[in-house]
């Protein structure tokens, strides 16, 4: 009866996951490249996103929107949340699959014969023998009688003959060991693993986005140095051509340059004024735009002179920034490796302790 309920629940969960995936993929296939309004969402996804998306005007929404824009201006926060939903579904499936494999492995070791459990038993014979057995320490005698009676119910004659000659107390002890092992096949911690996997799926895109943005901020100074050189080398060229070169060569400033080119192409707006009056833009980007303004206004000699002077000034800063960046990155890698080592050590200790009391449990 229990198993049937489990199978029904599993089937329902699978149908629900299938439904979500179908909806999500249908929406993804239908959608166009967008930023906002041209995104065609189905009712389900629209409802889901309306619950999940941070409210307009909140700090969280502003920060996320800026990060997504900084990474790729053609994407929006809605698309980012869609990826988060997909990740949760994916990690749930992965977690369930990994857990199923682990539980199956543990189950395969339940009836293993060893010093604590010397009898060769199958799942079916165990089920028959323990029928009506309470495993209550106050009712041991009653349980022993029940086991005696149950042995006669075994369908396998050889098993019946073997267990008939065995002391009921020995068989009872074996059954307790098997019951303990069965209890360890699937525990509350395993459910926690699924929950943790879902949480990981939800948080992972957020962390990756944060890491990518911090990566871009990290290389900003070096990119500024490179683009400064590029302007220096092409200072005699037209600004529109230099802009295309800058766009092709930049990573951290790519979206900002893309936006600047749009402004620059619009003759009604003074693009330089728009950028130079902004406080929120990165200083390095503003400086690059100022160089471009100088190229257009004062000619290449002034720009080259200014860039040369700036490069000389930044000589020491460059080395410091490089050392700092490498130190940060090394720290991150060491932290990940250290975490892995700590996990394996903790696992070792837990395995050793659990072996003392509970028998073989694999973590």
């Amino acid at each position, binding site marked *: 009866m229990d198993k049937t309920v489990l199978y029904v629940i599993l089937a329902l969960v699978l149908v629900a996951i299938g439904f979500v995936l179908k909806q999500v993929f249908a929406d993804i296939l239908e959608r166009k490249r967008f930023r906002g309004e041209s995104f065609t969402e189905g009712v389900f996804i629209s409802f889901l996103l309306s619950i999940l998306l941070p409210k307009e005007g909140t700090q969280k929404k502003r920060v996320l929107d800026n990060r997504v824009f900084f990474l790729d201006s053609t994407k929006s926060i809605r698309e980012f949340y869609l990826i988060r939903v997909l990740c949760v579904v994916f990690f749930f499936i992965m977690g369930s699959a990994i857990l199923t494999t682990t539980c199956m492995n543990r189950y395969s070791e339940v009836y293993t014969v*060893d010093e604590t459990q010397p009898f060769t038993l199958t799942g079916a014979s165990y089920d028959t023998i323990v029928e009506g057995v309470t495993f209550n320490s106050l009712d041991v005698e009653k349980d022993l009688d029940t086991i005696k009676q149950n042995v006669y119910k075994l369908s396998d004659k050889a098993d019946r003959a073997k267990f008939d000659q065995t002391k009921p107390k020995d068989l009872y002890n074996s059954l307790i060991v098997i019951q303990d092992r069965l209890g360890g096949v699937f525990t509350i911690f395993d459910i926690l693993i699924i929950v943790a996997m879902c949480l990981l799926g939800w948080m992972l895109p957020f962390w990756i986005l944060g890491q990518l943005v911090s990566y871009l901020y990290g290389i900003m100074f070096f990119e500024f140095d490179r683009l400064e050189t*590029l302007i220096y080398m092409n200072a005699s060229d037209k600004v529109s051509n230099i802009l295309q070169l800058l766009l092709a060569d930049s990573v951290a400033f790519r979206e900002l340059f893309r936006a600047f080119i749009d402004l620059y192409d619009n003759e009604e707006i003074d693009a330089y004024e728009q950028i130079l009056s902004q406080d929120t833009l990165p200083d390095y980007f503003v400086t690059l735009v100022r160089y471009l303004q100088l190229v257009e206004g004062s000619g290449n000699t002034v720009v080259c002179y200014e860039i040369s002077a700036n490069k000389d000034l930044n000589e020491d800063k460059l080395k410091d920034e490089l050392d700092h960046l490498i130190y940060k990155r090394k720290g991150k890698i060491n932290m990940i490796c250290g975490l892995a080592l700590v996990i*394996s*050590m903790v696992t070792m200790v837990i395995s050793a302790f659990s072996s003392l009391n509970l028998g073989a449990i694999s973590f």
Partner: protein
Amino acid sequence: MAIIVKLIYWLIAFLCIGTVVYTYFSFDKMKKGQYLEIPLFFSNMGDIVDGIPPLRIFASKLIIDASLVYGSADLGKMYATCVVLAILPLSTIVFMTINIFCSTWYMSLVGVLLALVLPIMYFRSSLTDKTIQIRKSILKSQENIASSLAYNPVVLDSAQTIARTSSGPTKRLYKIFCNNYVVDRDVAYDVYQNTVSDSYTKTFVDILKRFEEQGINPIEPLQRNAKMAARHYYIKGMGRKVFNGLKIMVLIYLASCIGVSYMGVYLQTAMTGNAVENALSSSPAFFICLCLNIIALILCFVYENV
């Protein structure tokens, strides 16, 4: 049935090893000049690679770097085709080796990812390391040209001096430059610029051309250009130097994780008296450790590009 499966397994392994060995020796022959042009098989494979966008992007980057390292566009193309051809069999061999220790499907999945990612990153990274070294050496030669032009304003003389005094790819590059320069100056500059293929060399060539055509003093701009290039390659080289060492550290960490996890299984076996089959490779905790170490290794490859 099991024998047939094993036979197929070994057949695939031998095929992969055969492909890798064949591509290696073909490239070696081409390098030694035993082929006058790219062999038909590799030429056709190169066309196929060109038709598949992700492979084309990967190969095009390899061609630029390999042309500089091996000194000719043909060798660059051949190298790129060989690498693209060898990556799949290499990945298969790596996966087959890793899979021996994987008893669960998720460990095999990690094995597939590792086998696919590592050879690609290794080839890309090792070639970039070589090109940075060569570009640094070419950069030094450009600085030498700038200083020698101060007392002998003939570009060919300076280039010939460099060709005599340098070694390796730099020597080869300047020999080709001098040979071409005697025949046609523009061709010589074009070949030089296309082979080195970086923006500093483009500027270097522009300055020399302006000097020869208009007589504009090249020394100060050449020195400024060399200084900027030195700064650029200092940044690039520094990141690679640090993270190449860190890759070995990550491997040591990985070995420690395997060792500690194995010790856990050993303790468990010793305390309970039961040997648990595949306890290490089927443990989710060990799987997490492995994933973390692989992420760290991939980050090393990503972070070395400052």
